[in-house]
Each structure stands twice: as structure tokens, then as C-alpha cells.
């Protein structure tokens, strides 16, 4: 699948923004000023980007607890996201959602989700709406190797096939459900092998390789848009940080992650490939690096200087409060 220069720059900006955002969150969280829990997506940028490059605001996605990357790739406002993570009233959800519940329905982002495996049924509904509207839109459910073992995921795969829905189920298999290895917890060889049981195409790709994800996603999304029904894509990938910030990661060898960062980093490899092909100039990428750094710096300043929600916000946004 041929990538245009503009698309290459767009993909690079998505991945770079996610990386900068997550690495900054890691630092901000360490200051103790950011409440709650954060699950970082760094290392997995090629997965969300490779999929989202094919989507518009009208296509809908569901995300996971590790949802910042999906939000950014789907077009959510980065300042609003940062403010949300700081629990500020200027946040995308007015400070009521937090890291695990960022949503922007106008962008087709149905929400990060604190419940593992909860997104796939919702995506069946979004896919059903698209099918009934006959508008060629698709719906994409992201889940991890942990979510791949949930009954909700199995039920949704079956329902999507039975109803012939324009849904794409994307398993980002980063090898670990918290501290449990997917080599142990997934009973079959690859998660994508399960697609056959539901009568749909399934493919396993290298989730560090933007081009592999982009190509597989293109096929699955085209199939769905043309009425061909659902597909399952498994992206095998690694997360650079722990399950959540503060995770000591006693379950894996730190040297292994250093080696993966050095040899398989999705942004480094993407950069090498598109510059060697002569598709984009290194200067253009460097310019994006600068803009991204400025964007994140501005988002942190915006979030930190924003007000917290007031007591009057506690009882609003629910139909009635007693």
C-alpha cells in the first residue's frame, strides 16, 4: 500500500505526538501533581496510528485503559487531554473522567475504558448504526491480550459476524496483562488464530512496524466499508513502561526492553524507512519534532494553570442528584 508524502508526515506527527505526550506524562506523574493512575502507550504508537490513518471523525472507536494514544490518533485535543489527566475543569470531560475515561464523541472516540474487554460490545453497536445508516462508516474496537480473553470479546466477535457488521477488532498484544504473560494466558498460538472460529479473516502483524499495521488495517477496513463484515487484527508489540506508572516490572527483564527500544522502535524505524525511500526530507520530520515539543509544553502549561472543577460541578451531568 503506497503512502503519500502527506500521509507519511501525518503518520509521523501522530506517532511523535503520542510519544512526546506519554513521556511527558511519565515525568509529570512522577512529580506527584497528577492524580490517579496512568497507563502509558509508548512503544505501541504504530498500532493506533496504522489503524487511525484510515479513519475519519465519522468512524467510531472504543479504546482501553491504555487509551491516550488512541485518543491522540483519533484527533482528540491534546490540551484538553492533558487538562483531563490533571483533573481540571478545562479537560475533555471537565475533569470527571480522567485518564481511563477520556472520550470525545464528536471525534468518534467512544472512550477509553476502565473495564478490560468492555469496548467490543459498544463497537458492535456503533457498527450496527453504521450498517443501518448505510453510510460506509466503520467501527474499531481496540483491546489488549488481556481483553482478548474476556467473554465480551468472544460474544462481540460472534455477534459482529452474525449481524455482518462493519467492525474491526484490533488486539494490541503487548505481551502482558498487568504482570501476566500472554504466552501463558492465551491458550492458542496467536490471538488472531481465533478469528477462524468466528468465520472472519484474522491476521497477526508486527505492531512495531507502521507499514505492516497500515496495510493490514487498510484491507480490513476496506472489506468492512464495502459490506464484507468484520475482521480481527492482532498487532504484536511491546509497551515501554509498566502496566501503570509505579509498576516495578519485576516480571520482565529490563535488558529486554532496552534491546527492543534500540532495535525495533516504531518511530526510529519509520523515520529510517521514509527517509531512505526519499519520501520525506529529514528536515520536515525535524520540524514536526519541534512543533510537537511545543504542543506538549503548551498543553502542560495550559493544564497546570487551569482551574479545578468547583463544588457546583459535583452534581451536574447526571439526570438527578439527591
Amino acid at each position, binding site marked *: 500500500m503506497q503512502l503519500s508524502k502527506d500521509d507519511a508526515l501525518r503518520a509521523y506527527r501522530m506517532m511523535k505526538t503520542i510519544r512526546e505526550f506519554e513521556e511527558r506524562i511519565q515525568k509529570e506523574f512522577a512529580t506527584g501533581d497528577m492524580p490517579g493512575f496512568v497507563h502509558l502507550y509508548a512503544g505501541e504508537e504504530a498500532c493506533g496510528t496504522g489503524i487511525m490513518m484510515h479513519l475519519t471523525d465519522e468512524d*467510531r472507536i*472504543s479504546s482501553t485503559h491504555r487509551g491516550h494514544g488512541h485518543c491522540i490518533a483519533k484527533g482528540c485535543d491534546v490540551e484538553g487531554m492533558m487538562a483531563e489527566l490533571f483533573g481540571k475543569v478545562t*479537560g*475533555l*470531560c*471537565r*475533569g*470527571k*473522567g480522567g485518564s481511563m*475515561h477520556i*472520550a*470525545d*464523541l*464528536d471525534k468518534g472516540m*467512544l*472512550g477509553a*475504558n*476502565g*473495564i478490560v474487554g*468492555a469496548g*467490543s*460490545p*459498544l*463497537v*458492535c*453497536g*456503533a*457498527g*450496527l*448504526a*453504521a450498517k*443501518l*445508516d448505510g453510510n460506509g462508516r466503520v*467501527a474499531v474496537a481496540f483491546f489488549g491480550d488481556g481483553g482478548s480473553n474476556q*467473554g*465480551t470479546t468472544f*460474544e*462481540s466477535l*460472534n*455477534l459482529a459476524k*452474525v*449481524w455482518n457488521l462493519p467492525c474491526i477488532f484490533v488486539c494490541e498484544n503487548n505481551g502482558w496483562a498487568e504482570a501476566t504473560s500472554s504466552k501463558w494466558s492465551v491458550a492458542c498460538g496467536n490471538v488472531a488464530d481465533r478469528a477462524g472460529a468466528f468465520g472472519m479473516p484474522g491476521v497477526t502483524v508486527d505492531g512495531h512496524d507502521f507499514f505492516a499495521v497500515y496495510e493490514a488495517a487498510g484491507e480490513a477496513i476496506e472489506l468492512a466499508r464495502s459490506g464484507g463484515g468484520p475482521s480481527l487484527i492482532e498487532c504484536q508489540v511491546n509497551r515501554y513502561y509498566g502496566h501503570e506508572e509505579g509498576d516495578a516490572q519485576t516480571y520482565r527483564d529490563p535488558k529486554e526492553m532496552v534491546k527492543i527500544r534500540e532495535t525495533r522502535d516504531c518511530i526510529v524505524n519509520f523515520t529510517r524507512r521514509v527517509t531512505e525511500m526519499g519520501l520525506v526530507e529529514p528536515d520536515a520530520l525535524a520540524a514536526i519534532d519541534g512543533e510537537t515539543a511545543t504542543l506538549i509544553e503548551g498543553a502542560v502549561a495550559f493544564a497546570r494553570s487551569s482551574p479545578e472543577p468547583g463544588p457546583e460541578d459535583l452534581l*451536574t*451531568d*447526571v*439526570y*438527578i*442528584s*439527591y
Partner: protein
Amino acid sequence: MARKISYRQAIIEALDQEMARDEKIIVMGEDVVGGAGTDMEDEAWGGPFGLTSGLYAKYGGDRIMDTPISESAFIGAAVGAASAGYRPVAELMFCDFLGVCFDQIYNQAAKFRYMFGGKATTPVVIRTAIGAGLRAAAQHSQSLHPIFTHVPGLKCVIPSSPYEAKGLLIASIRDNDPVIFCEHKALFETMGDVPEEPYAIPLGEANYVREGSDITIVTHGLMVTRAKEVAASLEGDGIDCEIIDLRTTSPLDEDTILESAENTGRVVVIDEATPRCNIAGDISSLVNEQLFGKLKAPVQRITAPHTPVPFSPALEDLWLPDNARIEQAIRDAVAYAGA
């Protein structure tokens, strides 16, 4: 113009009239068509209780659809479609099946609006059968409305008659929040006056079923019928009962409960659910908190015992609050002479 139809027919009529009004209303559930994918579609079931009977023939498979037995997936799909511009009505055949789909209801549908800063609406209705008395035993007889009522963001509706069934279902479908619509199985064939034209009964407004001056009976669903029977029988003894049908347990019409309780000074609450953390306990606490010192007798709670629903008719009849227990509680409250 009103004519007599059954509670079941009232539900079908509400669905039919709303589906005709708004093409974004879709219906899904196990066997709500019955026979999907076979040659028998035209003679479809319309649900195991016949509550969607005739809708497939009229609206077709894009408006009413069978699902696999996958409650998490299709309840979640209804919630997802509600987030994507549709107004789905999903049928959870028995409320007892809540255990295999609750996450999509209480963590997803109920929370979107608040959790997303007020920017999401989730206009989904989940119709579900509640109630004992049909010898359906422990896993098909429960009244789980207290669980739904407990969750902020969900509305919980319990119609007590054909009139309420139609008007409350229409209001639920038109509402922009997720509504759990609890249909009592023992009421499906009861008959009552129902206007032919569509009408909506506002959610959150209790109904004075009967006015009286000696004691207030607060209840809902099947127990409204029993309360009426008891109230009629006590008339001869000079006990004048007021009956309030809650219609919705969430939102709860606190004002009407307190107004009536203050007027009579005596309250009996009847709830078919098991006693801990149920509606009877909630209302008893509300009345005591607000009207302490104005009450002539302690608030009486009449509930099922804290056990699963038994199968044997001899036991189930003891389990379900009956007229004798209701009458005794009323007599005790009226006769109460102080500590």
C-alpha cells in the same frame, strides 16, 4: 379513546407507536423476532412472552433483530448504538440475566454522561421481566430493581398496570438517559383501560392510586394490585388507606411520598424485593429522617424474606408478600399506641 387491553398488549402498542413515530428506534433481543435466519420468520415468536409480537411483520429485520444468546454483546451493542444516534430498546428476557451483562449497563451506559463531562447521551431502554409467582424458581423470579435503582445514571421504571405500561414505556423511549424498564411477569395478562393514542407518563412522578386519611401505602408493580384489594377490604372496618404507586424507583418522587406520609402520619411500604438495601428500607429511612416526630406509628416494611425465591408453590406463596401480611401491617400501624 380508552378501551381495555392487557399489560402485554400495552407494551406492544407502545413499541409499535414509537417505532412508527421515529425510525431511529430499533429493538433487539433473544427471540424478539424468533426464527431469524429460517424460513419461519413470518410466523415469528415475538419473544417468549409475546411482548414484541407483530413488530417484525410491520418493521422488518432492520428495525427488530434477533441476537445470539450473548447478553453482554447485544446489551452493549444497544448502548453503543445509542451513542451513535439510535434509540435502541433491548430486551433482557429476565432481569435475573443481569449477571451476564451488568458491566455494559452500570459501568458503561449509566456512566457515560457524567464521566464524559455531560457530552454524551445514551438513550437506551432495557426492558426486562421481573417478579415472582410463576413457579419459575430462583433464577427466573427475582425483583432486582433495587440494584438498578442504586446506580446513579440509570432510571428504573416499574409499571403497575396496562395504562402505566404504555405511558411509561413511551416516556422511557423518549428519554435521553438509560432506562431499565421492569415488567412484572404476573401482570402480563391483566386488563385495564388504555387510551389508543400515544401518551407519555413523566418519569419521576408517583401516582395517587387511592386517596385516604389514615395510612399511606407506598408500593410499585404487582404489589399495587394487592394494596388496592387490601384497602378495599379494610374500608368496612373504617380504615381509610391512601395508596401511592411509585411508578419509578429512580428518579424517586420524594415529595409525593412525604406529602402523603405527613398527611396520614402512618406509612407501610411494600416491596417485592428481598429486604436488605431495597426500596422499602430506603423509603422508610427517608420518611423517618424527614418526618420524625410527626409520625403516629413506626414505618412498616413488607418485603420478601432474605432468601432466594423457592420453587415449591407452598413456599413461593409464603415468599411473596400476600394480602394477609399487608393487612396485618396496616392494622398494626393503625392500632399502634406508642412505646
